[in-house]
């Protein structure tokens, strides 16, 4: 079997980025939109073909094989070198499908959504750049290649968040996203350096081979009671947590909603933010086998806490995109939780499979939620719930797809989210009761805030609009309908046959009692939302007042941003940077300026010696010559 053609999947968007970027002034918007979509469409078809090819024929002795095609790029030593290439295994193929599907849909959607925008071609060029980077990240054969593409997705995310660069808030949000993730990536880089120093390789197939010497023998060195390799993968997880907006590195994600809505759907819901999950999944054997899975426990608890934390905040937010952003953070926390409770072999690897399954279904329904929210925003020109209400009459298709996505994320039986969430909770139940309870509680909260949003937008008060909102054009509704289809159908894929930790299929069944609990909790959430928000009532206001300061705290996102500001402004700037700047200005610079000033004033004093009479100069010349001659003569006779 030959999968080397998969290299085309990232290269097509790269070529498009170059074409659209270089000729952005010459290509008319109509052409650039379709060109971008065509390119991504071909990547999409190739990805589907790869998936078909791989999952049907990639098995040898019931184990999915790993295919690697690579070239050596930079050589450090005989053993340690950086390669560039593609790695085909179940999770990378699955990610290819996720990324290309959502990216293709977002491209199509953007043709309608961004219509008439000044930077239309630029927008598509950035989208292509992002797709290229994301495909490269997914297909990376080694940590270093992944790191390169990791930074590239960071850059494209920065460019797209700050797409409306005339808006100061968008610029600030772009900077914030870039700096926070960069800060996290420092951990990633340190982790890579430590790991490669002790193991002598970057390659995933050597690092994550459960029978390989790295996992079975480990490394003798330890630091503070843990193997250095565990520290390395914890540092790498910091990078993953930064990209995946895990607490406490999540602060950039809500602000990133300043970008155009298709960007939020593609980057900040479906693909880039799950890169952290993908990273942990990619290195899963290391996380699982080193130090009895200490690092994996960290992943699980960070994930569970983020899921809970974000879900609570999402309940109170009024900007619909921010609700979705916190929801994304919460769902990614779920995936991390699932990875964290997973084991390696056979049915015990349920968590791993569930995490990947949820990644897949989440990409579909969360992408859809964002696209639908974009459609709403497109119609009413506002992000805020207070400007919406009763939209079901004006936007029937958006209404239906939003409902499907909301039911899916709430875990309503029969929808995709139900299946993946159920697997996650089963995995959590089998390993850790506390995490399971958190998971169920978050499931209820998710159902509640999602239907608060749904009823708030499409039902609730009958808002009077100056211009009656209208349904979005076909180029926007068709991608939404496709994703709506996937939000239901995605759940019926038997993931346990395809994507597992040890590349072997196992049978996963619904656990009916547990599923019933989850569904019950979800239904309670939906019913509460129905009672509170179906018709406009004063109950929500009273409720929020009765919670008092807790509501205020939640509404202000537990002041994490303010804590960051305090730490950066007051402590880092005030106590470290400002004195350093003072030292630089008054000591380092001042000494240099002092030398300059002294020279200038000295030369001011002695410039009177320059009389303009050349005879004086000749006198000095001869005098100097005589003095030098006398000195030489004196030395000579001694």
């Amino acid at each position, binding site marked *: 079997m030959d999968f080397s053609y998969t290299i085309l999947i990232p290269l097509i968007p790269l070529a498009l980025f170059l074409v659209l970027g270089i000729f952005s002034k010459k290509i008319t918007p109509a052409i650039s939109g379709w060109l971008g979509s065509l390119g991504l469409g071909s990547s999409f078809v190739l990805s589907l073909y790869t998936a078909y090819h791989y999952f049907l024929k990639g098995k040898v002795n019931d184990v999915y094989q790993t295919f690697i095609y690579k070239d050596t790029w930079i050589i450090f030593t005989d053993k340690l070198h950086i390669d560039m290439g593609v790695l085909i295994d179940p999770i990378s193929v699955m990610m290819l499908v996720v990324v290309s599907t959502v990216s293709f849909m977002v491209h199509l959607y953007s043709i309608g959504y961004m219509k008439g925008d000044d930077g239309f071609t630029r927008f598509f060029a950035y989208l292509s750049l992002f797709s290229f980077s994301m495909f490269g990240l997914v297909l990376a054969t080694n940590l270093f290649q992944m790191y390169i593409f990791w930074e590239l997705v960071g850059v494209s995310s920065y460019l797209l968040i700050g797409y409306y660069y005339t808006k100061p808030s968008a610029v600030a949000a772009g900077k914030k996203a870039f700096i926070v993730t960069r800060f996290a990536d420092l951990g990633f880089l340190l982790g890579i350096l430590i790991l490669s120093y002790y193991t002598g390789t970057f390659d995933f197939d050597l690092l994550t081979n459960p029978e390989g010497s790295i996992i079975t023998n480990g490394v003798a060195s330890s630091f503070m009671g843990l193997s250095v390799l565990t520290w390395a993968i914890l540092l790498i997880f910091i990078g993953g947590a930064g990209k995946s907006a895990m607490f406490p590195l999540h602060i950039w994600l809500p602000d990133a909603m300043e970008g155009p809505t298709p960007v939020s759907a593609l980057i900040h819901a479906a693909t880039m933010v799950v890169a952290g999950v993908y990273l942990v999944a990619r290195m899963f054997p290391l996380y699982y086998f080193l130090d009895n899975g200490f690092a994996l426990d960290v992943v699980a608890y960070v994930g569970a806490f983020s899921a809970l934390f974000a879900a609570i905040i999402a309940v109170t937010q009024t900007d619909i995109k921010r609700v979705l952003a916190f929801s994304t953070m919460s769902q990614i926390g779920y995936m991390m939780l699932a990875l964290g409770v997973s084991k390696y072999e056979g049915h015990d690897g349920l968590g791993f499979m569930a995490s990947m399954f949820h990644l897949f279904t989440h990409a579909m329904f969360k992408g859809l939620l964002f696209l639908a929210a974009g459609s709403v925003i497109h119609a009413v020109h506002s992000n805020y719930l207070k400007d919406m209400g009763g939209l079901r009459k004006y936007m029937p298709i958006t209404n239906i797809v939003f409902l499907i996505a909301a039911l899916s994320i709430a875990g309503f039986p029969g929808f995709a989210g139900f299946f993946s969430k159920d697997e996650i909770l089963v995995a959590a139940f089998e390993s850790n009761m506390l995490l399971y309870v958190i998971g169920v509680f978050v499931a209820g909260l998710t159902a509640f805030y999602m239907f608060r949003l749904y009823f708030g937008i499409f039902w609730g008060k009958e808002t009077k609009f100056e211009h009656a909102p209208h349904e979005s054009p076909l180029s926007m509704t068709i991608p939404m309908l496709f994703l709506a289809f996937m939000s239901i159908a995605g759940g019926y894929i038997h993931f346990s046959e395809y994507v597992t930790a040890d590349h072997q299929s196992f049978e996963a069944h619904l656990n009916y009692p547990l599923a019933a609990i989850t569904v019950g909790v979800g239904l309670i959430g939906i019913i509460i939302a129905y009672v509170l928000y179906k018709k406009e009532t004063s109950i929500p206001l009273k409720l929020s007042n009765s919670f008092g300061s807790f509501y205020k705290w939640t509404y202000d996102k537990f002041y994490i941003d303010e804590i960051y500001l305090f730490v950066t402004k007051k402590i880092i700037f005030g106590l470290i940077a400002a004195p350093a700047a003072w030292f630089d200005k008054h000591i380092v610079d001042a000494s240099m300026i002092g030398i300059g000033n002294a020279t200038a004033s000295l030369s001011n004093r002695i410039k009177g010696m320059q*009389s303009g009479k050349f005879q004086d100069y000749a*006198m000095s010349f001869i005098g100097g010559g005589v003095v030098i001659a006398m000195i030489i003569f004196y030395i000579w006779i001694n």
Partner: protein
Amino acid sequence: MIEGISIYEILTLTSILFFIGVYGFFTRENLITILMSIELILNAAAVNFVIINTYLFPDFLQGAIFSIFIIALAAAETALAIAIIINLYKLVTSVEVRDTETMKH
């Protein structure tokens, strides 16, 4: 080789010539006379070349040839200097050194 006159006497003469030139160069106020002083310095050097060649290395001719170089150089230099002085005269209607003091800081 001149009968009855040793090299020392001639070198003394050229030294005197040289220092008259230097003295004139420092003290004269008129650019033309300064130029003449420079000529004296150059000629002292040229005579030195010839004398040393004749007295010490009679079999060679380099010193004599070099003195011819110096004469050519002096001629060229004088032509240039005169040109400058004429232009200066057009500018300030004077060839006195004190009228050319503006060429400073």
